[in-house]
């Protein structure tokens, strides 16, 4: 019908991006910069969530889908049935910061095991005071804050810490909006939260960052440590998925290239963490090669793998 026709007409001058709200700032920044490059191309960016983005993507309604998690099997299936092929491109990291209130004086670092003890489903209703985690900590009540269960951050954190997606205690304070979590934990002496690193950076006056010991000693997240993978396992990759059909359009091709080339610089601007420079090269070549499909084999996740490894693995395959 008319919709399709108009979509094709618009395709000449516009690029549609939709999906994750985590990736949104980066895509927005790229789109903004791209305007100076090619003012005639209208790039639009939406934020209907990774799930919503993939739904549209799989129906051919968008050219590029922002995602804060890898595409799922069902979503791939949907793309397949609709005859849509995609190129999966990691563009940056989202570091997950574990924070406590400035008023909290006793926590200086935390181990992954302790985090697990704190967050695993079994902890629900039983782990209530800090001394249960580490005996040197005071017997004060624990208040946990975390992203909403429908978010990729939640999925990633639970998988990274508790070993299984969604494996988390339920009795914590959840919110979709990380600013809300900031508000919550900032005023809560017994509180602990995890959310995007950028939210810590903007609120470092109110919050205390907790270094995480993933086996190599406590490491505080920073652009540096996240980017080079030393801050593990709490950093997750962000992706864009490009429709191969759209790639046939020159402006899309140009845009994606521009995206990859500028992601390093721009992700710092918007508060996310860039990949390593070499990794961008690999991504660029992946795009140039129009390698379709995901780098994540079914069931496997991104946890604990460096992006370079993953990309290499894919190349190798």
């Amino acid at each position: 019908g008319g919709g399709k026709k108009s979509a094709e007409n618009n395709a000449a001058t516009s690029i549609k991006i939709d999906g994750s709200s985590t990736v949104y700032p980066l895509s927005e920044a790229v789109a903004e910069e791209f305007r100076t490059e090619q003012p005639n191309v209208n790039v639009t960016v939406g934020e209907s969530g990774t799930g919503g983005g993939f739904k549209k993507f799989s129906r051919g309604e968008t050219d590029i889908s922002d995602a804060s998690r890898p595409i799922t099997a069902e979503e791939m299936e949907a793309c397949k049935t609709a005859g849509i092929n995609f190129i999966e491109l990691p563009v940056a990291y989202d570091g997950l910061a574990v924070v406590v209130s400035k008023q909290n004086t006793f926590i200086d670092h935390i181990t992954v095991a302790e985090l697990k003890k704190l967050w695993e489903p079994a902890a629900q209703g039983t782990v209530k005071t800090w001394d249960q985690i580490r005996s040197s900590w005071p017997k004060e009540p624990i208040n946990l804050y975390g992203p909403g269960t429908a978010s990729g951050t939640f999925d990633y954190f639970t998988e990274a810490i508790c070993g299984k997606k969604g494996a988390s205690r339920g009795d914590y304070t959840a919110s979709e909006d990380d600013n809300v979590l900031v508000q919550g934990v900032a005023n809560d002496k017994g509180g602990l939260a995890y959310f995007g690193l950028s939210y810590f950076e903007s609120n470092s006056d109110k919050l205390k960052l907790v270094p995480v010991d993933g086996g190599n000693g406590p490491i505080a997240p920073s652009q540096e440590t996240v980017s080079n993978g030393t801050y593990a396992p709490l950093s997750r990759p962000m992706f864009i998925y490009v429709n191969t059909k759209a790639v046939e359009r020159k402006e899309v091709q140009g845009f994606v290239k521009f995206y990859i080339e500028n992601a390093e610089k721009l992700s710092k601007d918007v508060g996310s963490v860039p990949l390593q420079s070499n990794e961008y090269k690999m991504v660029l070549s992946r795009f140039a090669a129009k390698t379709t499909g995901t780098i994540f084999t079914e069931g496997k996740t991104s946890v604990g793998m460096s992006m370079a490894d993953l990309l290499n693995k894919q190349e190798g395959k």
Partner: protein
Amino acid sequence: MQKIKEKSIEAFLILCASITVFTTLGIIVILSIETFQFFREVSVFEFFTGTEWTPLFAIKKYGILPLVAGTLLTTLIAIAVALPLGLTIAVYLNEYADQRLKAVIKPLLEILAAIPTVVYGFFALTFVTPVLQKIIPSLSGFNALSAGLVMGVMIIPYVSSLSEDALSAVPKSLREAAYGMGSTRLQTAFKVMLPAASSGVIVSVILAISRAIGETMIVAVAAGQEPKFTFNPLQSIETITTYIVQVSMGDVPQNSLEFRSIFAAGITLFGLTFILNNISYWMKQKYQQKYE
């Protein structure tokens, strides 16, 4: 010729009126298709009796009651605020305040209904909760109480303005009768005016409740997203609307069971409002007072 014109106009009007029916049908169909799929995997019994709601966790439980409880709890708190405050304000504006004051205060209060609800959400979270925590130390950072309170403030104008309209519509003669019998203003307002305006007041309250039940952002921001089967207002809870907005705009894959659960939740909410509206219709019929 004229007949044809009249007939075609009527046909057009019927079409417009049936749009509301189509809308309802559309909502029901869209919710039902997915809900039907959902219930192929989840037992209806569990859904309506379960007290745990963890569709996004590793161990998935689909008991809607926590969400229903959360919805009812915040709505209840909002109404507990808006009803007495709104009615008191309505009575005050109608019976005590002079006309000029009323002409200023009424539109001012109506502004409360026009403020974007996100703003209210942050107000609840960053202002009301900390203040309340000074009084109630056990209050958690996200809680039904402050979300409900602020939501109550938001819907005050629904109650105050609409009820005030209803009170104004009560014939002057009735008020004069009450004064003539030697009633005080208080007695006049509560023993005569309010009962006489009951139909309009009920409608206003129902509208306010509907608004509160359907309200999303305030509860999403300030009440938390923790589905708990509790009626303790000091705790963080989750409402049906919060759940729907969280999932539908989150990262969950859209053709998954998790995603479908929002349709089941949606239809539950739809049913809840439906019951409520039937009750209100019934109450309205029962208490409706006609003055010509």
